[in-house]
C-alpha cells in the first residue's frame, strides 16, 4: 500500500497579475521505505507541490485534488489534525540551514521543543533523545554542543541539526527540500551519505526535492522530472539516467558539467528560459526550448505510460508505452 498517494493535485496562486498555475494535475505515490526524488528548475513547482499537502502554502495559494496519507486526505484535514501528522509522521527539512534555525535559541531548546510537543516527553528525556539524535547525524561531542547557538555551528553542521530535528519523532516520511544546495560539495557528499544511511536503518520513506539531477543519482529509487508545474517524465533512477525519454530530461542530463567526460566540447545548454507561469504556452510547455519540437507540439502532448509506472508527456512515442486517456484532462477540456 502506498504511504502517500497524490492524485490530480493543482496549486494556484492569486496575484495582482493574474492566476499563477504553479502545479498542475500531479499524480504520484510513495511506498514505505521508498525514496522518491522530485527534480526540476526553479519555478517548476516542486516545492509548492509539497508545501500544498503539508498545509504550508502562502495565503494567496489554493490547492485542489487529493493527497491520501494512509488513506486519509491531508487536504481535508482540520489544522489541528494536520498538526498531529506534521512533525510526527511527516517531517520536512528546508533548503537553507542558515535561516531555518532560530538564532536566538540554543540547539537544545529548538530540538526538545519538538519532542515535548509531539511525544510529551519530560525535559530530561527530551534532552537525552536530542543528544542521541545529534550523535546519529555525527555531530561531535553532542552533550556539549547541544548547549550552543546556531551561529556556533558551520553550515554543514547546521544542516545536520536540521536533519536531526526532522528525525526526532521518527517520522514515517521525511521530505527534504534541497537539503544540500546551500552547502559545499564536500559537505553535500557527506550529507547525502548520512541521509542514505539513516534511511536504510529506519526504513523511513523519503521525498527529495532538488534542481540537481547529479545529487540524486546515489540516493533516489524513483524520479519525477517536473517542468513548468507538470510532471514531464517519471521512472526508476536507471530509467531516468540511462534511458531518458523526454527531451527535457535528456537536455537536463546533457547540461551538467561532468568530471568523467571530456571538457573539450561545449556544454550542451538548453536554450531559452522556463515559461512564465502567468502566460503558459498552449500545448507542450517545453516546446519553445525543445530541439525536437514540431508543429503538433502546439497541442497538448499525450501521456505515455509503461510498465513500472514509467511515464512521459510528449508526442515522441515511448518505448513499450501506451497512451493513457486522462480523466481530469478530459474534464478540464470541457
Amino acid at each position, binding site marked *: 500500500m502506498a504511504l502517500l498517494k497524490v492524485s490530480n493535485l493543482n496549486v494556484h496562486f492569486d496575484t495582482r497579475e493574474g492566476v499563477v498555475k504553479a502545479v498542475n494535475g500531479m499524480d504520484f505515490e510513495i511506498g514505505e521505505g521508498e525514496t522518491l526524488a522530485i527534480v526540476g*528548475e*526553479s519555478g517548476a513547482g516542486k516545492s509548492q507541490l509539497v508545501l500544498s499537502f503539508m498545509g504550508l502554502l502562502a495565503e494567496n495559494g489554493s490547492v485542489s485534488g487529493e493527497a491520501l496519507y494512509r488513506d486519509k486526505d491531508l487536504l481535508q484535514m482540520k489544522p489541528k489534525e494536520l498538526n498531529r501528522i506534521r512533525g510526527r509522521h511527516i517531517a520536512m527539512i528546508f533548503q537553507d540551514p542558515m535561516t531555518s534555525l532560530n538564532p536566538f535559541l540554543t540547539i537544545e531548546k529548538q530540538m526538545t521543543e519538538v519532542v515535548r510537543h509531539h511525544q510529551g516527553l519530560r525535559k530530561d528525556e527530551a534532552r537525552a533523545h536530542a543528544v542521541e539524535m545529534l550523535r546519529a547525524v555525527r555531530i561531535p561531542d553532542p552533550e556539549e554542543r547541544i548547549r550552543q547557538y546556531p551561529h556556533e555551528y*558551520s*553550515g*554543514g*553542521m547546521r544542516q545536520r541539526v536540521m536533519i536531526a530535528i526532522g528525525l526526532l519523532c521518527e517520522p514515517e516520511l521525511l521530505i527534504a527540500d534541497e537539503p544540500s544546495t546551500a552547502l*559545499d*560539495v*564536500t*559537505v*553535500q*557528499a*557527506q550529507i*547525502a*551519505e548520512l541521509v542514505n544511511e539513516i534511511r536504510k536503518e529506519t526504513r523511513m520513506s523519503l521525498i527529495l526535492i532538488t*534542481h*540537481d*539531477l*547529479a*545529487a540524486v*543519482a*546515489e540516493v533516489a529509487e524513483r524520479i519525477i522530472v517536473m517542468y513548468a508545474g507538470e510532471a514531464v517524465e517519471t521512472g526508476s*533512477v*536507471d530509467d531516468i*539516467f540511462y534511458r531518458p525519454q523526454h527531451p527535457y530530461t535528456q*537536455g*537536463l*542530463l546533457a*547540461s*551538467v*558539467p*561532468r*568530471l*568523467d567526460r571530456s*571538457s573539450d566540447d*561545449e*556544454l*550542451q*545548454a*538548453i*536554450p531559452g*528560459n*522556463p515559461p512564465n507561469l502567468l502566460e503558459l504556452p498552449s500545448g507542450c510547455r517545453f516546446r519553445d526550448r525543445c530541439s525536437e519540437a514540431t508543429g503538433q507540439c502546439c497541442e497538448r502532448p499525450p501521456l505515455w505510460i509503461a510498465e513500472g509506472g514509467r511515464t512521459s508527456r510528449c508526442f515522441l512515442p515511448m518505448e513499450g508505452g501506451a497512451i493513457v486517456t486522462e480523466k481530469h484532462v478530459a474534464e478540464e477540456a470541457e
Partner: protein
Amino acid sequence: MTKPVLRVQDLAVTFTSFTGGLLQRRERQLRAVDGISFELHPGETLGVVGESGSGKSTLARAILGLITPDRGRVMWRGEELTGLGEEELRQKRKELQIVFQDPVASLDPRMTAGDIISEPLWTFYPNMARLQVEERTRGMMKVVGLLPNQINRYPHELSGGQCQRIGIARSLVLNPRLLVCDEPVSALDVSIQAQIINLLQDLQKKLGLALIFIAHDLSVVRHISDRVMVMYMGQAMEVSEKSSLYQRPLHPYTNALMKSVSIPDPRLAAAARQDRWLTGDMPSPYDRPKGCIFHNRCPYRVKRCEADVPALRRMENRDWVACHRAEELDLSI
C-alpha cells in the same frame, strides 16, 4: 610567451573583529587571504576553486581594489594598483570589471535592464551623446543574448539567467581587459548554468579578455579554465594547467575536491562514493592549524606536515603546489 597583464604577489587580507563584550573586548584576526601569488596572461582564464570560507571572493575584491590588502602587490599591466588613490583606481576600473554571484540581488530593482547596462557609460563618460549610449547598450545586449524588447524590463520581470546576462553586459560595456566572475552561475539552474558558461567562453574568445572565474565546484570551472588555482583557508594549495590538474592533481586537497563532485550516473556515483575520503569541516579560521594548513584532514600527512608550512613551489611540469610530499604521492584520478 606574452607578458602577463596581471601579476599578484603575496597578497594578504586580514579582517579584524571584536568579541567578548564591552569589558573583556578582545581582538580577533581572520586571515581571509594569506599570501596569494599568480600571473594572468591576456586571453587566459584562471579558475579559482575552494569551499566557502576559503577566501576566493575576498581575493577577487582585493585584486580589484574593492578591499585594501594589508600585504602584497597587485600589478596591472606593469602598474601597481595597490597604492593608487581613489580616483586613479576608479579610472583603472574601466579595464577591470566584476560579475557577481547573485544575479538578482546585485542589480538595482528600480532600474531597467537598459539603465543598468548603460550606467557605467554615464559614470565614466558623462558627455557621451544619448544616442551613442543607447547604441552601445543595445549592441551589448545583443552580444550577451538579450532581446531588444527587454531593454525596458526590470530585473524582477526577468529570469535569473537573463539577469546574469544583464550583469555580464554591464561589466563588458566599458570594454574591460580583465573580467572577474565571482561564482557567476552557482545561483542559476543547471540548464541555464551551461548557457552562461558557454556565453562567457564565447565572449572571451571574441574580446580577448583575461578572465578569473571563481567557483566552489571543480566540474564548473573545468570547461572554461586554462589553469586552475585551488584555495584552502586563504592559501593556494595548487595552481596547475587544466590538463594536468584534472588527471593528476598534485595536492591531496585537490584530489578530495574532485572526489566530492557528484556524478549524474547512478552506477558511477555508487563507485565514486567508496572513493571519497575527505571528512569533517574546515577548521575555524581563528584557530588555524600549524604547519600545513590542511594537515589535520589529510590522510597523507607525516610528522613534517604538522610543523613546517609547505611553500608553493614549482614542479617539473611547471605546475605549482604547496605540499611537502608532492613528488612521491600519486594522486591520479
